């Protein structure tokens, strides 16, 4: 474990000092020339790449690390997601893994000296019929066995938590219950990305924006270098952390994995006074919603039904979304939708990630993050760093290996991740 001193620690006192002296804050992360070689090259400066670098440096003292991104820090899914953090998954492997991330998130503001604004407002997954209620019960039972705070509650309790919700019986899709997960909530995604970037930078890792990986050189079945628009880098370890673009990096070393990239859309309304104090998900209505501290409602849904690398929003998405949100909360019809956007999701068949080593030596993956990977940033970074540093796959990511596909060991999380990310 390495301890560092930030040149300017963030604090209330610091704000006052900088305010008084009108001094500038140091750069969150610095710009560098590209070196001819690094011990580790991480492709993708999203939360996964940045967290991996951070823990490599912090937990293992490995700092000769380059994080390359073709755009800017957090410009991929990590800056486009709806930032829901929770651990009420369906499989024991999933529950344990995501729970570690929740724990890391709980301490992350202090650890990174960067307020990531984790608000554990509680997370509700609604059931509108007996079959979804059964799935909620299933998740609750698995969660409880793993020691997670999660249970099935009825319409009256739901109404208490979310007074705007129409829990009456005469709606088209009556609400019959919900899975309630009090520790679930949201973070501020940019803050997480920037906090990890700053922490990695200060420990000596280099962040290279506008640096696109164009090919990867291998020799005798192992990685030897990557080629970028800014030049060649010799390295024996490359980590693919490119989420929606992961397949394009995989083919650079001749690998094909069961990944299909789908767009996922989201939207936000104008702000109104806070009235919603939980994340609400409805699988049957394909929608989820939470309210930010700024007062905006943030909406999401399931992925677009076709494979694509396009990040454009569609009209139909907003229509369906609004219709379904109003089924749940009819009182907000006069709120206005302000902005919509889309990101790319690398979907796997079982809604679980692909992590670890591959048949190409030195080429590691941390991909398959689909619609649910932001919450996994901290634990993935921690585990990938351990794998890189020790050469041994940590216990908590063994289940997510690439070999599970041919070996029929899928880790099915569709029932817990298809709509509520």
């Amino acid at each position: 474990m390495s301890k560092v001193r930030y040149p300017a620690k963030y604090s209330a006192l610091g704000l006052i000092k900088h305010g008084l002296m009108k001094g500038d804050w140091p750069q969150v992360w610095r710009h560098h020339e590209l070196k001819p070689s690094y011990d580790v090259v991480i492709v993708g400066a999203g939360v996964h790449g940045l967290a991996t670098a951070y823990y490599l440096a912090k937990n293992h003292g490995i700092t000769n690390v380059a994080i390359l991104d073709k755009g800017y820090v957090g410009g991929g899914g990590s800056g486009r997601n709806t930032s829901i953090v929770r651990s009420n998954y369906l499989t024991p492997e999933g529950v344990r893994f995501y729970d570690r991330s929740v724990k890391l998130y709980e301490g992350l503001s202090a650890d990174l000296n960067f307020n990531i604004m984790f608000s554990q407002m509680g997370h509700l997954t609604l059931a509108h019929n007996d079959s979804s209620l059964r799935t909620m019960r299933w998740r609750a039972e698995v969660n409880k066995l793993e020691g997670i705070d999660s249970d099935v509650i009825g319409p009256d309790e739901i109404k208490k938590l979310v007074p705007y919700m129409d829990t009456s019986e005469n709606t088209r899709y009556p609400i019959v219950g919900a899975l309630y997960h009090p520790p679930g909530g949201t973070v501020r995604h940019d803050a997480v990305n920037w906090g990890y970037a700053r922490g990695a930078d200060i420990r000596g890792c280099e962040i290279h924006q506008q640096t696109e990986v164009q090919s990867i050189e291998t020799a005798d079945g192992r990685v030897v270098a990557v080629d970028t628009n800014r030049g060649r880098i010799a390295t024996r370890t490359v980590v693919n952390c490119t989420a929606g673009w992961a397949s394009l990096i995989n083919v650079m070393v001749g690998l094909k994995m069961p990944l299909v990239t789908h767009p996922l859309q989201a939207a936000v309304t104008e702000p109104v006074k806070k009235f919603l104090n939980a994340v609400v998900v409805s699988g049957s209505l394909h929608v989820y919603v939470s309210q930010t501290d700024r007062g905006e409602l943030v909406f999401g849904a399931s992925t677009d039904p076709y494979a694509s690398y396009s990040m454009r929003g569609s009209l139909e998405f907003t229509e369906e979304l609004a219709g379904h949100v109003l089924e749940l909360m009819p009182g907000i019809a006069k709120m206005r939708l302000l902005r919509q956007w889309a990101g790319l999701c690398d979907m796997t068949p079982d809604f679980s990630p692909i992590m670890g080593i591959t048949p190409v030596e030195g080429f590691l993956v941390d991909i398959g993050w689909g619609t649910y990977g932001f919450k996994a940033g901290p634990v993935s970074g921690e585990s990938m760093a351990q794998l890189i540093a020790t050469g041994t796959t940590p216990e908590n990511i063994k289940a997510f290996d690439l070999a599970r596909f041919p070996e029929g060991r899928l880790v099915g999380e569709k029932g817990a991740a298809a709509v509520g990310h």
Partner: protein
Amino acid sequence: MSSAAATGRRLDPQAGEVIDRGSPLSFRWDGKAHTGFEGDTIVSALMASGVDVFSRSFKYKRPRGVLSATFHDPGCTVQVGDEPNVRAAHRRLAAGMDVSPENVWPSLKFDVRAANQLVGRFLSAGFYYKTFMKPQRLWPAYQKILGRFAAGGVTAADAEHGYYDKRYIHVDVCVAGGGPAGMAAAVAAARSGASVLLVDEEYHLGGHLRYGGEAELAALAELRAEVAAQKSIEVMTNAAVTGRYDMNWIAVVQRQPGISVRGRSIHERLCKVRAGALVVAAGLIERPYVFEGNDLPGVMLSTAVRRLVNLHAARPGDKAVVFTANADGDACAQDLRRIGVGVTVVDARTGGNIVSAKGGKRLKSVDLADGRSVDCDLLVTAVGWTAATPLLNMAGDRPVYDPTPARFFPTDRLPATVVVAGALAGDGSTAELIAHGTAVGATAAARAGHGSEVPVPALARVAHPELYRSTTHGFVDYSEDVSSKDMFAAKKEGYDSIELVKRYTTVTMGPSQGKLESVNAVAIMAEAHGVTDLNEIGTTVWRPPYVPITLGALGGRGFENTRFSPMQSWHEQHNAKPLVAGDWIRPEHYGDAAAEVAKVRDKVGIIDVTPLGKLDLRGPDVPKLLNLLYVNKWSKLAIGAVRYGVMCAEDGVVMDDGVTGRLAEDRYIMTTTSSGAATVWEWAESWLQTEHPDWQVHVTPVTTGYASMNVAGPKSRELIGRVVEGVDLSNDAFPYMHVRTATVAGVADCFMWRIGFTGELSYEIHVPAAYGLHVWEALFDAGSDLGVGAFGVEAQRIMRLEKGHFIVGQDTDGLTLGFGADLGWCIKLDKDDFAGKPELVLQSQRENYQRLVGLQPVDPTIVPAEASQIVEGAKKIVGRVTSSRMSPTLRRSICLGFVEPHLATPGTVVTCQLPDGRRVQLKVIEGLAHFDPAGARMKV
């Protein structure tokens, strides 16, 4: 209040005014009574009665007044009744409106949170990222305080939802923007024979001509007459084109369209337009200037002043400084002089500049670059324009900055069916803009198939000073309280690209989405980087919607499918408890499910199974299709025979099950699960259309074409015999798993088959839907002496569980491959190929999958809740209960469930943890059936 207020600020009638002085309207603002005129906006009425401040800013709670006097005016957002965030500089006044300021505390006049201004320098952009980290447990408390500052109005849980509707429009040409160029384009397109939709955000066509001088008003009158003369132009005002999607799929939101449906007026309507061509004539938006005090009430854009004066006859101030760099600023100065306002002109073209504005709740003075300080209550800026390019951006263009005219211009990356008219394309006199619009309109019509293209005259790019920021710092984003200083600081801190600075400072993220601020933000970033070419900084991508749309308008009327069987009236009369099952609403039970079970087991019962998916398959290649979709074999199905089949997806996961019967040589009927009806149809079609277009098969979904009912129980044959004509019902002539076409209760073209989901002798009858109720009632009439009764879904679920029939999706899940569901008996791996075969071959070589088994609690009175986990040791999960019920027939609890392979041997006792934490023992039984495992009862 300024002195003007005391005397009233309503001017004498103006040439182009849109208010109706004969129709006064009274309304309330901030609890006090006011009056305005029909045609006023909320803000113009308030300005005319002396109000300067309409809101408090987001972070510093600074008083804010009029800036642009348009929909996008950041300081003019108010609450009207239960509607939050109403754009008061746009929304028309209506009688009795209850208007109040938003988020002020305790009042608009005095907001204690304005104390934030004093500590402003400590609250630099993104300050919240730098504090409140420790202790973590206090964050929720900090968060509450931050939440107090959130902008925006209020909603209510029980606010009226209102009525919303949508409209589809198909036109040849859609024109976005009804200024001179847009109007001319519409007229020209119509003259070429095209149908035209002309959309403008304002209440009247005319754009900037409306608040111009005599010449502009004359040109406008002429254009309006020409538009009115064209029958094929539909004019839509107070409406905005909010999005342009592929193939000119265009969203238009119409605000308060004045349409009522059954006495309820529509608040907003979404029009979905498919246009042959789109003319973007959205014009220019006047850009604010960045300097100290640029947000003080009394600092306004030249176009805002001209709107207030010329359209609404509201005097914006008494003594003005006009900082102008262009003809519009000059015209504004003239307008002000005309109404008697003293004007000091500061001309940017001759080197003049303003440095800062001073004042409190209203502007008091302006410091000029030449050292003078001028007392005034109005400061007008006319420093240039932002091209309204969002629609072009949505059409795939990336506009490019030209420093000479100091604004962005479209490139040639636009599709041919999106054309730009008017000021977006360049500068010109009114006549030149009209000529440009005319040529573009004809061109658009031609590209939509009417008339022929004409050459479009080029518009000049007139030089304009590049004016973004003075020598002082001021607000760039008014609604977010982001200053140029914040942006400089953010850049220094490393948030140095436009995307990062936007995210870090939230500049351009507020309700106007950058329409006023975007280009200033880019210019400030350029300055911070020390570059002069704005193109090096780029712009952020404009995303739809162009203006915010209410959720009500987007959602529209609910068109959620709701399906009932033809027998619904009967069910309602018999007190059926409704069960929502996807699209369908069907009877769960009629009061007592256990009694319904007993009836079926002892006598005869009837269930409405209309929701079962039904596909009519015809053609010689149907067996090929069945062999592909199902895991079992279908080549030898005889006419009159029925077979059970299971489908797996390509990953081998169980996807659906049902029966298919062969009615004639080339005709088959397939049934699917109720919830799988649509999926299976799409599945079949996608195989046929993508992989086997050569096969001669025709698939028709007939789910709702037939009413379906299952008559089950030992006396079902007797009952059926009383209503069916022309079929020998004896077991030899019509055995189990066979199908017959028949006339039932006088209704021809019915078919029925003997199958056994309930485990009893049973006939599933499919009747042309229109006769469903008739046949249903006939069965009950005929069987009253047999003790016939209706049964619902719950009784059926109990009976199928007694029989050990699994339900796809309940007793299987997204990972259950065929062999896991105990389907080894019907998966034929020796078939050539079928969907899912490769995965099932792999599974057949493995042992590591959970098995579906029948389970009986050792204590027969305990019914473990479905989804209870089967465990080993403290917390190792080794399976789960998928279905459970108390069996009225066996008088004990029964289950189906998954267990790890080592626990699947009959006789094994497993441990189940109930939701309340108790643990109970369950015994694995032989096979899945708890009752009549040999199936004797259904084959009689």
